């Protein structure tokens, strides 16, 4: 999963950037509103973490413009403005959630997971496909009730596919979900991870749609 972090403060931005990567998500970090607008033009992000007090383009204006354009990407506003009116305005302009500084990384991660869950239309925090159980919060995966140890990249790839069962994701879409900016993408890595996942899950779990990409069937 790939997130866009819009935060002008160097220390906070750096910490959130580092911290969220520990949850297995790839995060791109921009420091002003204009850069955020540019980044949002290629629609690779699963969610935006938006600070409001931004240089150049204010966070709320940015959000308003995105919503006007019809961009329905989940947006979590992170801000020091904690007055009720500010929260109401933020949510009414189109934020999906509102987190007031200072906050804990755990809470931020939980709210991101909740946003993703809502977006996928799931109620249960655990993704269940056939005998596979995938818990995004604990990053535990079981297959037929047996724990299935996965590397961070394997987990990221599997959850990207499991998040939207039945949808076909191309190789480049999967790469985008796995790697943030500045991270070296080795050629055929996606194939390598698919191969390793198939060894652990069985060959049929992840299906290849020739010439298009990969998918997980709705009930494998």
């Amino acid at each position, binding site marked *: 999963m790939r997130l866009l972090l819009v935060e*002008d403060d160097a*220390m*906070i931005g750096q910490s959130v950037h580092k911290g969220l990567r*520990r949850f297995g998500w790839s995060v791109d970090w921009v420091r002003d509103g204009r850069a955020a607008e540019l980044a949002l033009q290629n629609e690779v992000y699963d969610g935006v973490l938006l600070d409001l007090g931004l240089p*150049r383009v204010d966070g709320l204006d940015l959000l308003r413009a995105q919503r006007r354009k019809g961009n329905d990407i989940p947006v979590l506003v992170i801000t*020091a403005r904690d007055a009720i009116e500010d929260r109401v305005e933020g949510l009414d302009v189109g934020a999906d959630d509102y987190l007031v*500084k200072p906050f804990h990384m755990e809470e931020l991660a939980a709210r991101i997971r909740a946003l993703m869950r809502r977006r996928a239309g799931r109620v249960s925090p655990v993704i269940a496909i056939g005998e596979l159980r995938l818990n995004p919060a604990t990053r535990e995966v079981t297959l037929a009730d047996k724990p299935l140890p996965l590397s961070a990249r394997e987990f990221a790839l599997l959850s990207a596919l499991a998040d939207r069962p039945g949808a076909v994701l191309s190789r480049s879409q999967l790469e985008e979900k796995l790697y943030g900016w500045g991270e070296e993408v080795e050629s055929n890595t996606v194939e390598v991870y698919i191969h390793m996942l198939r060894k652990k899950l069985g060959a049929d779990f992840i299906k290849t749609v020739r010439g298009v990409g990969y998918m997980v069937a709705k009930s494998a």
Partner: protein
Amino acid sequence: MRSIRRELLLWLLLGLVVAVAAAATGTYYQARREAKELFDYQLKQLALSVSNERISVLPHSHERELDDDLAIQVWDRNDKLLYSSSPELAIPRRPDPGYSNVATHRGRWRVFGIQARDKLVQVAQPLAVYEELAAAMAFRVVSPLLVILPLMGVLVWLTVRRGLRPLTSLSSAVRSRTAAALQPLPETGLPDEVKPLVVSLNDLLGRLGRAMAAQKGFIADAAHELRTPLTAVQLQLELARWATTPEERAAAFDDLQRGVSRATHLIAQLLTLARQEPGATNRPLEPIDLVETARLVVAEQAPFAADRHVDVGLSNAVESVVQGNPEALRVMLGNLVDNAIRYTPAGGRVDVAVTHADRHAVLTVRDTGPGIPAADRGRVFDRFFRGHELDVPGSGLGLAIVKGIADRHLARIELDSGLDGRGLCVTVTFPM
């Protein structure tokens, strides 16, 4: 406690009492003088009529007058008492005819003597009669006033209370307020004597309100601004806790250290700013040599500048003594030089100068940094305003502090382009 009402009542009634007493005294003396003339005339008439009568008929002819308050004596040529209506009174024979006062065992008496052929007639009357009459007249004049006196007291009490009612309602209006209610008191319908008080109270309330609003704004801003460094510290702490390798942990603790330093710096700057607020100190200004201050600050900042490979120095120093607070001036120049060094890229230069212009002391700090766009120059003195130079850490308070100190020293600050048209030049002009 002094009370206008009590004092007015006291003095007005006292004045009334004195007036009544004066009227009574005046009437008394006036009446006594008139009574004396009247009674003297009566005495004389009586003496004349007695002198024309034979002694044997006297007790009968003057029976009516001969009560306790009238005495008749008839003496012969040899000073022998021929007749006395009140022998026990023992009024001596007066040597000369005419009026005189005599002391007897029944008080002082008024005596009139007349020489008639072969005898001397003396008629006497107690002086107390005169006085009683005068007192009675005085009392008749004063008694209505004595009735009026308490009425006047009540009237004065009511009038004063009525007159002071605006003050009473004003004080209850002020008393019923909460500490936060600073809206002006109504100024209409007030008597001329109370209006100036209300107007100046409203003026004070207005100033108080503005000061409180500024204070509230400051606290809100400060609390808001403290969230940012505290958020960073919170997140850095979590990362440090999650670190798995010693290297990761060391790096996380370095970050955490920087986060704490930033929060500490912000708090220090907030405190400095609070100290520069008007009214925060009442330390008198003293003569300060700006050159000395500039030397001190440049020396203080030299290690920081060397770290960043910025050349800092005092380029021009003309002795300039201004009235100031030494600590505040050092903070001000320190902030300016610190800013200049912070924003100037490595290899750049910061010049501090103290000169004179037009009977003013002029302090300038020039740098070769990015400068401040003209559009932002008006706002950089606002608290927590930060420019677009995201990579330079700062609290956004430095220039607000500088402005506060300059204002207290009646100095003017101007921003312009710096060395060779690049960078920033801050000019602070002090009156000398």
